[in-house]
């Protein structure tokens, strides 16, 4: 079985808590708060004001430039505020608040459940619809999909890779999507192939989801243009560069190189479903499957949730927070972000809410580095985390740059494996941000 060439770790996948729960539709929230920055790039610009009536699927904020994404009303009702509110990290950011009145949808949206497989649109038209629908990468990186699909002049896409790896422990939203919405996923894949003009697509799925592989293969049938590839289970296989290396045996060079430089375009499995809905059903991105899980969560679930629904509502639906110390994560335990505020609304990049409680929620005590080289061995980018973290502590930014800090994908393998419990990634991340800032300033001066 294929996998990426260097590094990687094997955390317990802990998917057993939620993998058996079929996707349930989450009740509509009475009030939603929609952040204008849900994607990488410029925050969207609000096009509604306080007092406006909106219907589900109506555009409420417009992409501010190319590297940005539209945002649509996830429920119908009245806009009660467009103002700054605290997000999950406690920082204030611009949000549109809508008070719900019924569930009235925009007329242009086809809400039937009938599968529409036929698509004769041109590449440009497809990308236009994806852009209009506000689709961003739903694996967590939230990179605007229309930007990814717009192949730059002089570059050529050779292969579309659909990322069904879901290597983050605990999370099962992509898994359930592949199982329950596989038909849509495959149509979405064909549309994406059309959009970037490739003859072949590969859906990468890890070996811990054999039923998803089997199911997708049965849908694909005799179609030779789409392959479903089972990959060896190893974190961070779902990292874009790792997945390309596993599937194509090609390594994307260090930044600023992009996947397209080796002929690859990678889209998340849930994103492919969203593309199907946008192009075939004219439905903008207003909801997603969110896994709510954790060892101490009473009823872990996979919930089809409208954006803006507060995390607290999802947690309540699954039996409430466990007692005592908790780490509530937006995402999975390897790359997710800890929330200090469960009023945070579900956003486009939120694939799961993972709750870690009790002793596991605490970090182990740091001790001296014994130079065991486990971090070097675990790094999937071939970096030296022990050295980078030491240099970050000394603020040796130049040295960090020459040791390729900008290649770090922040997967956390180094810190996960460190026997001395050193918070390696804390320092490496700090150094990476600083070095990237220095590089930006230097380029601006030129």
């Amino acid at each position, binding site marked *: 079985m294929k996998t990426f*060439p*260097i590094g990687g*770790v094997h*955390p317990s996948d802990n998917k057993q808590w939620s993998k058996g729960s079929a996707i349930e539709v989450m009740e509509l929230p009475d009030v939603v708060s929609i952040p204008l920055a849900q994607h990488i790039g410029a925050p969207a610009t609000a096009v509604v004001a306080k007092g406006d009536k909106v219907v589900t699927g109506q555009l409420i904020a417009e992409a501010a430039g190319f590297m940005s994404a539209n945002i649509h009303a996830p429920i119908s009702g009245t806009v009660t505020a467009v103002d700054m509110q605290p997000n999950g*990290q406690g920082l204030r950011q611009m949000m549109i608040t809508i008070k719900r009145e019924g569930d009235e949808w925009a007329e242009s949206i086809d809400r039937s459940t009938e599968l529409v497989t036929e698509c004769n649109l041109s590449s440009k038209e497809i990308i236009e619809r994806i852009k209009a629908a506000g689709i961003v990468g739903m694996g967590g990186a939230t990179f605007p999909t229309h930007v990814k699909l717009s192949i730059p002049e002089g570059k050529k896409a050779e292969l579309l890779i659909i990322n069904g790896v879901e290597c983050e422990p605990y999370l099962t939203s992509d898994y359930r999507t592949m199982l329950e919405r596989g038909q849509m996923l495959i149509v979405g894949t064909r549309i994406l192939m059309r959009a970037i003009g490739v003859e072949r697509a590969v859906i990468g799925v890890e070996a811990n989801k054999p039923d998803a592989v089997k199911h997708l293969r049965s849908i694909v049938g005799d179609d030779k243009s789409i392959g479903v590839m089972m990959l060896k289970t190893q974190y961070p296989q779902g990292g874009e*560069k790792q997945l390309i290396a596993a599937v194509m045996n090609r*390594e994307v*060079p260090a930044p600023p*190189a992009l996947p397209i430089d080796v002929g690859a375009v990678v889209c998340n499995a849930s994103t492919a479903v969203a593309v199907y809905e946008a192009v075939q059903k004219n439905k903008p991105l207003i909801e997603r499957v969110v896994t709510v899980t954790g060892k101490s969560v009473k009823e872990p679930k996979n919930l089809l949730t409208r954006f803006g629904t507060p995390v607290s509502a999802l947690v309540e639906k699954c039996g409430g*927070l466990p*007692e*005592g*110390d*908790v*780490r509530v*994560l937006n995402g999975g*335990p*390897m*790359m*997710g*972000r*800890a*929330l*200090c*505020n*469960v009023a945070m609304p579900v956003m486009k990049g939120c694939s799961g809410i*993972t709750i*870690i409680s009790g002793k*596991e929620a*605490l*970090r*182990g005590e740091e*001790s*001296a*580095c*014994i*130079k*065991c*080289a486990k971090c*070097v*061995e675990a*790094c999937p980018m*071939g*970096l*030296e985390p022990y*050295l980078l973290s030491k240099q970050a502590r000394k603020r040796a930014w130049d040295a960090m740059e020459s*040791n*390729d800090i900008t*290649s770090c994908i922040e997967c*956390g393998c180094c*810190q*996960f*494996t*460190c*026997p*001395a*419990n050193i918070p390696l*990634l*804390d320092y490496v*991340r700090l150094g990476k941000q600083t070095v990237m800032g220095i590089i930006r300033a230097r380029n601006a001066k030129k």
Partner: protein
Amino acid sequence: MANRFLVAPAPHVHGHLSTQRLMGDVIIALLPALIVSVRVFGWNVLAITAVSVASCVLLEFLVQKFLVKGPLTVNNLSAVLTGLLLAFNLPANIPLWIVVIGAVVAICVAKMPFGGLGKNLFNPALAARVFLLIAYPVQMTSFPTPTIEGFADAYSGATPLGAAKAGLVAFGEVDTVGMFTGAMGGSFGEISTLALLLGFAYLLMRRVITWHIPVSILGTMAAFAAIYAVATQGFGSVAWQMPLFHLLAGGAILGAVYMATDYVTSPMTRKGMLIYGVGIGAITMLIRLWGAYPEGMSFAILIMNSVVPLINKYVKPKRFGAR
């Protein structure tokens, strides 16, 4: 319901690997060799081991408590391991007071002054062994005769390497099976290749160490010996007998698997490990064949220890995406 929301950057889970576990695994891997030594040399092997381990742990505790006044970290088992390895490098009839002096050198000279675990340049157990070898050459090189039958009498009081150095050995007549199982003279931890390899297999299985350092050391030694044999005695059975002899004799296996792989004093990258291993193998053979001492493993490891910072500085892992 009073919840405390804990906030920290990712990752939020840990692999449960700990310094203590790694050290503990090496200690477990050394136990078969210890058992063989007790069988071959008797109970004083245990006495030496106990004194060595106890002195190392106590000294580290005292230094941390009264001199450094830092956090106490003796429970990470590293001092236990240092004590065990030091004992393994001593003859089975060494006076116990010399063992204590060895522990003082290991902990109070080679380890703690550099800043304790993780910061020392030289392998503490080896630094102590070499100090003792130079300071107490008589006690350190008079090896007792193994107490089990089947051991070739011609070597009594000497190690196979010592005998070879003195020109007493014809490689074709060496009892390689005896050397493999532990029926040979030497520091008590180095005698049984079989038991040491058993531990090596355990370390590989537990992913405590990788194959790179041991295999590159032993491979280099074998290649070196084979070339030497052919160059001096022409083609013939000696071309494989001499490499085999050198791998089984002396501290080759103990050094390659347990001493050279000490995390703190070995390189961080696989490429670096190979360079380091080849260096140790070559220096060991240079000393064994042309040096004043019959055995060169300890010196070779210490010399290469001093090169490790340089290796770490210049030998980088292959970056993802680099051509």
